[in-house]
Protein backbone atom coordinates (compact mmCIF):
# COMPACT_ATOMS: atom_id res chain seq x y z
CA UNK A 1 0.00 0.00 0.00
CA UNK A 2 1.25 3.43 -0.92
CA UNK A 3 1.88 5.90 1.87
CA UNK A 4 2.26 9.48 0.93
CA UNK A 5 5.67 10.78 1.71
CA UNK A 6 7.13 7.29 1.96
CA UNK A 7 10.81 7.27 1.01
CA UNK A 8 11.13 11.02 0.96
CA UNK A 9 12.53 11.43 4.46
CA UNK A 10 16.14 10.88 3.62
CA UNK A 11 15.85 13.06 0.55
CA UNK A 12 14.44 15.88 2.61
CA UNK A 13 17.11 15.59 5.28
CA UNK A 14 19.87 15.63 2.72
CA UNK A 15 18.32 18.63 0.97
CA UNK A 16 18.03 20.60 4.19
CA UNK A 17 21.61 19.78 5.17
CA UNK A 18 22.88 20.88 1.75
CA UNK A 19 20.88 24.09 2.04
CA UNK A 20 22.37 24.82 5.44
CA UNK A 21 25.89 24.21 4.13
CA UNK A 22 25.32 26.51 1.16
CA UNK A 23 23.87 29.27 3.31
CA UNK A 24 26.76 28.94 5.77
CA UNK A 25 29.37 29.32 3.05
CA UNK A 26 27.43 32.25 1.58
CA UNK A 27 27.35 33.92 4.97
CA UNK A 28 31.08 33.38 5.44
CA UNK A 29 32.13 34.69 2.02
CA UNK A 30 29.90 37.72 1.82
CA UNK A 31 29.72 39.00 5.34
CA UNK A 32 32.76 37.94 7.34
CA UNK A 33 35.62 37.68 4.83
CA UNK A 34 35.40 40.52 2.32
CA UNK A 35 36.02 44.24 2.96
CA UNK A 36 33.11 45.87 4.60
CA UNK A 37 33.75 49.31 3.22
CA UNK A 38 32.93 50.56 -0.23
CA UNK A 39 36.03 52.25 -1.58
CA UNK A 40 35.59 55.48 -3.49
CA UNK A 41 37.14 55.09 -6.88
CA UNK A 42 38.23 58.30 -8.47
CA UNK A 43 40.00 57.81 -11.78
CA UNK A 44 40.92 61.48 -11.96
CA UNK A 45 43.48 62.97 -9.60
CA UNK A 46 42.29 64.23 -6.25
CA UNK A 47 43.27 67.80 -5.41
CA UNK A 48 45.13 68.20 -2.16
CA UNK A 49 47.03 70.74 -0.08
CA UNK A 50 50.02 70.09 -2.35
CA UNK A 51 48.22 71.90 -5.17
CA UNK A 52 47.86 75.07 -3.11
CA UNK A 53 51.43 74.92 -1.86
CA UNK A 54 52.72 74.35 -5.38
CA UNK A 55 50.66 77.15 -6.94
CA UNK A 56 51.79 79.56 -4.22
CA UNK A 57 55.40 78.46 -4.65
CA UNK A 58 55.28 79.15 -8.39
CA UNK A 59 53.56 82.52 -7.88
CA UNK A 60 56.09 83.68 -5.31
CA UNK A 61 59.12 82.44 -7.21
CA UNK A 62 58.13 82.92 -10.84
CA UNK A 63 60.75 85.60 -11.51
CA UNK A 64 63.43 83.47 -9.84
CA UNK A 65 62.40 80.45 -11.91
CA UNK A 66 62.65 82.43 -15.14
CA UNK A 67 66.01 83.89 -14.09
CA UNK A 68 67.32 80.44 -13.17
CA UNK A 69 66.32 79.00 -16.54
CA UNK A 70 67.93 81.94 -18.36
CA UNK A 71 71.22 81.72 -16.48
CA UNK A 72 71.09 77.91 -15.97
CA UNK A 73 71.93 78.53 -12.34
CA UNK A 74 69.46 76.91 -9.95
CA UNK A 75 71.30 77.49 -6.65
CA UNK A 76 68.95 80.14 -5.35
CA UNK A 77 65.93 78.18 -6.47
CA UNK A 78 67.22 75.08 -4.64
CA UNK A 79 67.07 77.08 -1.42
CA UNK A 80 63.45 78.03 -2.06
CA UNK A 81 62.67 74.44 -3.07
CA UNK A 82 63.34 73.42 0.55
CA UNK A 83 59.97 74.91 1.42
CA UNK A 84 58.22 72.13 -0.50
CA UNK A 85 60.02 69.28 1.25
CA UNK A 86 57.17 68.74 3.73
CA UNK A 87 54.85 67.59 0.92
CA UNK A 88 56.20 64.05 0.73
CA UNK A 89 58.99 61.56 1.24
CA UNK A 90 60.43 62.13 -2.20
CA UNK A 91 59.88 65.41 -4.05
CA UNK A 92 61.11 66.23 -7.52
CA UNK A 93 60.63 69.64 -9.14
CA UNK A 94 61.15 69.55 -12.89
CA UNK A 95 61.61 72.87 -14.69
CA UNK A 96 61.80 72.20 -18.40
CA UNK A 97 64.63 69.61 -18.49
CA UNK A 98 66.21 70.45 -15.15
CA UNK A 99 65.15 68.36 -12.11
CA UNK A 100 65.58 69.45 -8.51
CA UNK A 101 65.43 66.55 -6.06
CA UNK A 102 64.80 66.38 -2.34
CA UNK A 103 67.85 64.71 -0.91
CA UNK A 104 68.77 63.42 -4.35
CA UNK A 105 65.84 60.96 -4.32
CA UNK A 106 64.71 59.41 -7.58
CA UNK A 107 61.03 59.55 -8.37
CA UNK A 108 61.18 56.38 -10.44
CA UNK A 109 63.76 53.93 -9.20
CA UNK A 110 65.55 52.51 -12.21
CA UNK A 111 66.86 49.27 -10.79
CA UNK A 112 68.05 47.99 -14.13
CA UNK A 113 70.60 50.77 -14.43
CA UNK A 114 71.72 50.68 -10.81
CA UNK A 115 74.01 47.68 -11.48
CA UNK A 116 72.88 45.99 -8.33
CA UNK A 117 69.88 43.91 -7.50
CA UNK A 118 67.60 45.82 -5.18
CA UNK A 119 66.79 44.68 -1.75
CA UNK A 120 63.33 43.19 -1.95
CA UNK A 121 61.98 45.32 0.88
CA UNK A 122 62.95 48.63 -0.73
CA UNK A 123 61.74 47.44 -4.13
CA UNK A 124 58.34 46.61 -2.70
CA UNK A 125 58.20 49.91 -0.84
CA UNK A 126 58.89 51.80 -4.05
CA UNK A 127 56.41 49.84 -6.11
CA UNK A 128 53.66 50.38 -3.55
CA UNK A 129 54.48 54.06 -2.96
CA UNK A 130 51.76 56.59 -3.58
CA UNK A 131 52.64 58.99 -6.39
CA UNK A 132 51.20 62.34 -7.35
CA UNK A 133 52.09 64.85 -10.04
CA UNK A 134 51.05 68.48 -10.50
CA UNK A 135 51.93 70.55 -13.55
CA UNK A 136 51.80 74.18 -14.55
CA UNK A 137 53.54 76.57 -16.93
CA UNK A 138 54.74 80.16 -16.83
CA UNK A 139 56.05 82.46 -19.55
CA UNK A 140 59.63 83.66 -19.63
CA UNK A 141 60.73 87.18 -20.53
CA UNK A 142 60.56 86.36 -24.25
CA UNK A 143 57.11 84.76 -24.21
CA UNK A 144 58.47 81.19 -24.28
CA UNK A 145 56.76 78.61 -22.04
CA UNK A 146 58.51 77.12 -19.06
CA UNK A 147 56.97 73.80 -17.98
CA UNK A 148 57.01 73.08 -14.28
CA UNK A 149 56.16 69.65 -12.85
CA UNK A 150 56.04 68.77 -9.17
CA UNK A 151 56.26 65.03 -8.42
CA UNK A 152 55.48 63.71 -4.96
CA UNK A 153 56.08 60.20 -3.72
CA UNK A 154 55.00 58.90 -0.34
CA UNK A 155 56.22 55.45 0.69
Amino acid at each position, binding site marked *: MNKKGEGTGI*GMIISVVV*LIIILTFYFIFFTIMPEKEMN*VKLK*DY*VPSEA*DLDFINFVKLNSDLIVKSVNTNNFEELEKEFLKLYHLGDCINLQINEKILRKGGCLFEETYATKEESPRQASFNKDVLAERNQIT*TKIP*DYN*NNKINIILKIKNE
Partner: protein
Amino acid sequence: MNKKGAIFMPMFVIAVIIIMATFTVIIYNHKDKAEEYFSVGKLQSNIIKNYFESEKEFFYYEKLLEYNEYKTTKEFGEDGAVPKDCNKKWKFNTDCEPDFKEYFKEILNKKIENKGITIDSYVEVYFTDFNLPTETETSKVDYGGEIRVKKEPLVDFKELEELKLDIKSCIQNKNMNNCNLESSSGTIYTFKRKIVDILNENFESEEVFLEFKIDTSSSGMTTSIF
Protein backbone atom coordinates in the same frame (compact mmCIF):
# COMPACT_ATOMS: atom_id res chain seq x y z
CA MET B 1 6.31 4.79 -8.63
CA ASN B 2 6.40 8.60 -8.97
CA LYS B 3 6.68 10.49 -5.73
CA LYS B 4 6.45 14.21 -6.27
CA GLY B 5 7.73 14.87 -2.76
CA ALA B 6 10.89 12.88 -3.47
CA ILE B 7 12.00 15.29 -6.17
CA PHE B 8 10.71 18.57 -4.75
CA MET B 9 13.44 19.22 -2.16
CA PRO B 10 16.38 18.29 -4.36
CA MET B 11 14.97 20.50 -7.10
CA PHE B 12 14.50 23.29 -4.57
CA VAL B 13 18.12 22.95 -3.42
CA ILE B 14 19.40 23.05 -6.98
CA ALA B 15 17.29 26.12 -7.69
CA VAL B 16 18.68 27.86 -4.60
CA ILE B 17 22.25 27.04 -5.68
CA ILE B 18 21.64 28.46 -9.15
CA ILE B 19 19.98 31.62 -7.84
CA MET B 20 22.72 32.29 -5.28
CA ALA B 21 25.48 31.66 -7.80
CA THR B 22 23.80 34.10 -10.17
CA PHE B 23 23.55 36.76 -7.46
CA THR B 24 27.20 36.25 -6.60
CA VAL B 25 28.26 36.78 -10.19
CA ILE B 26 26.03 39.85 -10.58
CA ILE B 27 27.33 41.42 -7.36
CA TYR B 28 30.98 41.00 -8.32
CA ASN B 29 30.43 42.17 -11.87
CA HIS B 30 28.61 45.32 -10.81
CA LYS B 31 30.75 46.07 -7.79
CA ASP B 32 32.95 48.52 -9.70
CA LYS B 33 30.00 50.38 -11.20
CA ALA B 34 28.25 50.54 -7.83
CA GLU B 35 31.36 51.98 -6.17
CA GLU B 36 31.69 54.66 -8.82
CA TYR B 37 28.02 55.58 -8.70
CA PHE B 38 28.23 56.07 -4.97
CA SER B 39 31.52 58.02 -5.12
CA VAL B 40 30.73 60.86 -2.80
CA GLY B 41 32.63 64.06 -3.57
CA LYS B 42 33.68 63.27 -7.15
CA LEU B 43 31.90 66.33 -8.57
CA GLN B 44 33.20 68.58 -5.81
CA SER B 45 36.69 67.20 -6.25
CA ASN B 46 36.61 67.96 -9.98
CA ILE B 47 35.31 71.48 -9.37
CA ILE B 48 38.22 72.17 -7.03
CA LYS B 49 40.64 70.66 -9.53
CA ASN B 50 39.25 72.91 -12.28
CA TYR B 51 39.50 75.95 -10.04
CA PHE B 52 43.19 75.23 -9.50
CA GLU B 53 43.65 74.83 -13.26
CA SER B 54 42.02 78.21 -13.87
CA GLU B 55 44.25 79.80 -11.21
CA LYS B 56 47.29 78.52 -13.07
CA GLU B 57 45.95 79.81 -16.41
CA PHE B 58 45.23 83.26 -15.02
CA PHE B 59 48.66 83.47 -13.42
CA TYR B 60 50.33 82.56 -16.72
CA TYR B 61 48.64 85.46 -18.51
CA GLU B 62 49.29 87.89 -15.66
CA LYS B 63 53.02 87.21 -15.93
CA LEU B 64 52.80 87.42 -19.72
CA LEU B 65 51.32 90.91 -19.49
CA GLU B 66 53.77 91.96 -16.80
CA TYR B 67 56.91 91.01 -18.76
CA ASN B 68 55.58 92.44 -22.00
CA GLU B 69 54.66 95.69 -20.30
CA TYR B 70 58.28 96.01 -19.12
CA LYS B 71 59.55 95.49 -22.66
CA THR B 72 56.94 97.85 -24.09
CA THR B 73 57.81 100.59 -21.60
CA LYS B 74 61.48 100.32 -22.50
CA GLU B 75 60.79 100.55 -26.22
CA PHE B 76 58.30 103.37 -25.64
CA GLY B 77 60.97 105.40 -23.83
CA GLU B 78 63.68 104.60 -26.36
CA ASP B 79 61.43 105.77 -29.23
CA GLY B 80 60.63 109.03 -27.47
CA ALA B 81 56.93 108.07 -27.34
CA VAL B 82 56.56 108.69 -31.07
CA PRO B 83 56.72 106.28 -34.06
CA LYS B 84 60.22 105.15 -34.99
CA ASP B 85 60.31 107.05 -38.27
CA CYS B 86 59.97 110.31 -36.30
CA ASN B 87 63.45 109.66 -34.84
CA LYS B 88 62.39 110.83 -31.37
CA LYS B 89 61.45 114.24 -32.72
CA TRP B 90 58.13 115.66 -31.60
CA LYS B 91 56.26 117.67 -34.20
CA PHE B 92 52.79 118.79 -33.25
CA ASN B 93 49.78 118.49 -35.54
CA THR B 94 51.51 115.72 -37.50
CA ASP B 95 51.97 111.98 -37.12
CA CYS B 96 54.94 112.80 -34.90
CA GLU B 97 52.81 114.41 -32.24
CA PRO B 98 52.91 112.00 -29.31
CA ASP B 99 49.71 110.12 -28.56
CA PHE B 100 51.06 108.33 -25.53
CA LYS B 101 48.34 105.75 -24.86
CA GLU B 102 47.87 104.87 -28.50
CA TYR B 103 51.57 104.42 -29.19
CA PHE B 104 52.05 102.38 -26.01
CA LYS B 105 49.11 100.21 -27.03
CA GLU B 106 50.57 99.77 -30.50
CA ILE B 107 53.89 98.50 -29.15
CA LEU B 108 52.21 96.21 -26.60
CA ASN B 109 49.91 94.86 -29.30
CA LYS B 110 52.87 93.71 -31.39
CA LYS B 111 54.48 91.98 -28.42
CA ILE B 112 51.46 89.99 -27.29
CA GLU B 113 50.16 89.41 -30.78
CA ASN B 114 46.97 91.34 -31.29
CA LYS B 115 44.97 90.67 -28.15
CA GLY B 116 42.14 92.96 -27.06
CA ILE B 117 43.94 95.81 -25.28
CA THR B 118 42.35 98.77 -23.52
CA ILE B 119 44.43 101.50 -21.91
CA ASP B 120 42.76 104.05 -19.71
CA SER B 121 43.31 104.39 -16.00
CA TYR B 122 44.08 100.66 -16.21
CA VAL B 123 45.75 98.43 -18.74
CA GLU B 124 43.28 95.69 -19.55
CA VAL B 125 43.99 92.81 -21.92
CA TYR B 126 41.65 90.09 -23.09
CA PHE B 127 43.77 87.03 -23.87
CA THR B 128 41.51 84.07 -24.46
CA ASP B 129 38.58 82.09 -23.07
CA PHE B 130 38.80 79.16 -20.69
CA ASN B 131 36.35 76.29 -20.44
CA LEU B 132 36.65 73.63 -17.75
CA PRO B 133 33.41 71.65 -17.51
CA THR B 134 32.96 68.74 -15.16
CA GLU B 135 30.44 65.96 -15.29
CA THR B 136 29.41 62.92 -13.29
CA GLU B 137 26.66 60.36 -13.79
CA THR B 138 24.13 62.63 -12.09
CA SER B 139 25.27 66.25 -12.60
CA LYS B 140 27.10 68.58 -14.90
CA VAL B 141 28.84 71.84 -13.98
CA ASP B 142 30.07 74.35 -16.58
CA TYR B 143 32.99 76.53 -15.53
CA GLY B 144 34.31 78.93 -18.10
CA GLY B 145 34.78 82.53 -19.07
CA GLU B 146 37.19 85.11 -20.40
CA ILE B 147 40.77 85.41 -19.29
CA ARG B 148 41.16 89.15 -18.83
CA VAL B 149 44.04 90.71 -16.97
CA LYS B 150 43.70 94.20 -15.59
CA LYS B 151 46.41 96.19 -13.87
CA GLU B 152 47.53 99.71 -13.21
CA PRO B 153 49.88 100.91 -15.97
CA LEU B 154 53.55 101.32 -15.17
CA VAL B 155 53.67 104.56 -17.14
CA ASP B 156 51.89 107.58 -15.71
CA PHE B 157 50.14 108.80 -18.86
CA LYS B 158 48.56 111.73 -17.06
CA GLU B 159 52.01 113.02 -16.15
CA LEU B 160 53.12 112.68 -19.77
CA GLU B 161 50.10 114.64 -21.00
CA GLU B 162 50.98 117.41 -18.56
CA LEU B 163 54.56 117.34 -19.85
CA LYS B 164 53.26 117.70 -23.41
CA LEU B 165 51.17 120.71 -22.42
CA ASP B 166 54.16 122.27 -20.66
CA ILE B 167 56.33 121.78 -23.77
CA LYS B 168 53.63 123.38 -25.94
CA SER B 169 53.44 126.28 -23.55
CA CYS B 170 57.22 126.74 -23.63
CA ILE B 171 57.22 126.71 -27.44
CA GLN B 172 54.42 129.25 -27.61
CA ASN B 173 56.17 131.49 -25.09
CA LYS B 174 59.51 130.97 -26.89
CA ASN B 175 61.15 130.09 -23.61
CA MET B 176 62.37 126.51 -23.73
CA ASN B 177 64.52 126.91 -20.63
CA ASN B 178 61.38 126.84 -18.51
CA CYS B 179 60.83 123.25 -19.50
CA ASN B 180 63.89 121.62 -17.87
CA LEU B 181 65.62 120.74 -21.05
CA GLU B 182 68.53 118.30 -21.11
CA SER B 183 70.56 120.03 -23.82
CA SER B 184 70.19 122.26 -26.84
CA SER B 185 71.90 122.80 -30.14
CA GLY B 186 70.66 125.71 -32.22
CA THR B 187 66.91 125.30 -32.54
CA ILE B 188 66.92 121.68 -31.44
CA TYR B 189 66.15 121.07 -27.83
CA THR B 190 66.58 117.70 -26.15
CA PHE B 191 64.52 116.59 -23.16
CA LYS B 192 64.99 113.59 -20.90
CA ARG B 193 62.58 112.43 -18.24
CA LYS B 194 62.60 109.32 -16.10
CA ILE B 195 59.26 107.63 -16.50
CA VAL B 196 59.49 104.43 -14.48
CA ASP B 197 61.65 101.60 -13.13
CA ILE B 198 61.21 98.20 -14.75
CA LEU B 199 62.70 94.71 -14.40
CA ASN B 200 64.93 93.97 -17.36
CA GLU B 201 65.61 90.52 -18.89
CA ASN B 202 68.16 89.83 -16.16
CA PHE B 203 65.51 90.68 -13.57
CA GLU B 204 67.47 93.67 -12.43
CA SER B 205 65.89 97.02 -11.80
CA GLU B 206 66.41 99.39 -14.71
CA GLU B 207 65.38 103.01 -15.08
CA VAL B 208 63.49 103.92 -18.22
CA PHE B 209 63.87 107.40 -19.59
CA LEU B 210 61.78 109.21 -22.16
CA GLU B 211 64.13 111.11 -24.41
CA PHE B 212 62.82 113.31 -27.19
CA LYS B 213 63.69 116.39 -29.22
CA ILE B 214 61.88 119.48 -30.35
CA ASP B 215 63.00 121.60 -33.27
CA THR B 216 61.46 124.97 -32.58
CA SER B 217 61.92 126.01 -36.19
CA SER B 218 59.53 123.23 -37.24
CA SER B 219 57.60 122.30 -34.13
CA GLY B 220 54.28 122.13 -35.98
CA MET B 221 52.86 124.87 -33.79
CA THR B 222 52.05 128.41 -34.75
CA THR B 223 53.78 130.73 -32.32
CA SER B 224 53.08 134.32 -31.40
CA ILE B 225 54.84 136.92 -33.50
CA PHE B 226 55.16 139.09 -30.39
